């Protein structure tokens, strides 16, 4: 496979934008990515888009508003991991030599409140909606309760993730939530699913994200100084070891055991020729406080049960051992499903370029990991400067 680089990144701020269409959100993110990479839209040879709630006509218009150049446009729906899946497919196509340059974008406009995955009118599996078994934070809360019993974690152990997220979100101009919260404020916010409180749950958001990728050879004409190499990836769905928790065992993502993350991270590390100890900055998919601890363990940054301690000791802060979710993560940056995967990738790129401002990880990080899970799926990518 050819070497592939990220040439440019762009975001539309995450938050609530009732007056903007999803096409307008995507416009700003794509325009920013094109400008950041000094690429004209006419040079784009293929577009890959990720959205869960938006549909193909939205994706087509998001691209064609820049011009009708006749390129292939591929829209991928993969729950919370839609745009990392779009990135993966773009990466593989360019790496295989089919195109030299591709645009990837993710976008979403969302309603407030709980998500409903699946429809009982279409699949009888979803009788669980009637039974009250479809509350995503509840499934994560079950995992948290288990950790409290098994490892001695406490609500404070989990809440510290939300405190750090709010601190970093306040410094990120693209974040949905810009207000720092104290530990006490996080714990005293209304209960959603005990032990999870409101501030320990990610918001549903509007937002858009985009990147331009191209072959390293082609990238030379734009200058490689800010280019970041895509050096590994892994993708998959849970195997049978995760099927024992039915019904609806896919609800709640990979937070029951971290099995999927554990399995795929080895593949991604192997392809990139690294181990977890070489990762300088991590964006992990942690929509609920406590999920970050499970991610650190299953990604190999510590032993089982030690994830909470890493957060508590501040090892996840920008000057810590494994800086994690340096832009506020899903908890504060927000979670417009289709835009999240590329926002993680954009943040890794920003960090590896040394352009993260007040949130910059010190001493020139060289290796970054973006980990994006959706309901029953996962994509992760390793980047090197």
């Amino acid at each position, binding site marked *: 496979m050819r070497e592939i680089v990220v040439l440019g990144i762009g975001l539309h701020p995450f938050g609530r934008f009732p007056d903007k269409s999803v096409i307008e959100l995507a416009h700003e993110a794509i325009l920013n990515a094109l400008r950041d990479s000094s690429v004209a839209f006419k040079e784009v040879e293929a577009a890959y888009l990720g959205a869960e709630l938006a549909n193909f006509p939205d994706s087509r218009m998001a691209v064609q508003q820049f011009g009708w150049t006749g390129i292939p446009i591929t829209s991928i729906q993969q729950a919370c991991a839609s745009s990392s899946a779009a990135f993966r497919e773009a990466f593989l196509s360019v790496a295989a030599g089919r195109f030299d340059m591709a645009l990837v974008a993710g976008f979403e406009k969302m309603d407030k409140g709980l998500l409903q995955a699946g429809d009982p009118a279409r699949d*009888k*599996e979803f009788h669980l909606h*009637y039974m009250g078994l479809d509350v995503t934070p509840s*499934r994560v809360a079950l995992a948290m309760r*288990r950790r409290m019993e098994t490892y001695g974690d406490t609500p404070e152990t989990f809440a510290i993730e939300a405190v750090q997220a709010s601190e970093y979100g306040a410094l990120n101009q693209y974040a949905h939530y810009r207000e720092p919260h104290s530990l006490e404020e996080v714990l005293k916010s*209304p*209960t959603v*699913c005990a032990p999870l409180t409101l501030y320990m749950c990610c918001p549903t958001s509007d937002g858009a994200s985009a990147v331009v990728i191209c072959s390293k050879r082609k990238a030379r004409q734009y200058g490689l100084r800010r280019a970041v190499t895509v050096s590994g990836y892994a993708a998959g769905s849970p195997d049978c070891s995760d*099927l024992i928790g039915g019904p609806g065992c896919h609800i709640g993502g990979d937070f029951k055991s971290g099995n999927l993350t554990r399995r795929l991270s080895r593949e991604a590390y192997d392809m990139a020729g690294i181990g977890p100890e070489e990762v300088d900055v991590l964006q992990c998919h942690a929509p609920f406080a406590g999920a970050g601890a499970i991610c650190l363990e299953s990604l190999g940054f510590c032993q089982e049960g030690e994830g909470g301690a890493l957060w508590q000791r501040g090892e996840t802060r920008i000057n810590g051992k494994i800086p994690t979710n340096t832009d506020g993560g899903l908890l504060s940056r927000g979670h417009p499903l289709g835009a999240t995967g590329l926002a993680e990738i954009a943040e890794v790129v920003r960090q590896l370029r040394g352009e993260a401002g007040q949130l910059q990880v010190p001493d020139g990080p060289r290796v970054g990991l973006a980990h994006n899970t959706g309901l029953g799926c996962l994509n992760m990518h390793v980047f090197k400067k």
Partner: protein
Amino acid sequence: MEEANDLKKMVPLQEGLFTPPEPDPGASHLLGSRCRECGSIFFPTRIYCGRCCTTTVETLALSRRGKLFSYSLNQRKGKLALVDVPYVEAEVELPEGVHVFTVLTVRSPEGLHLGMDMELVIEKVAEDNAGNDVVAYKFRPAS
């Protein structure tokens, strides 16, 4: 009224999740699938073994009792849910090794501790247009 009650039936919310609730819902079992090849057991039932990917599965009645693996107190519910908040969602581990996500009949986590014995309950969750009781499975602390 007596007559109406006699005609009233118990209708499962979803066919195939548990053995018929009549005449005695207290004798109902959840239904799972066991693979004859690899021994894996699943709940709910499956057509194909999740591990072997073959149709070598047979239906079996799962134990009515299990252990509380975890629980959560929910102050929010989905749009379609036939429960009132707050309610307790739980994960119960059956002796067969199968985990079941379920709502508990108790409305507060007071007195719950992981590992405690739980038992299956078939309980009314709604009424259908014909006046029948629509029933689903829940669990409660075992007596």
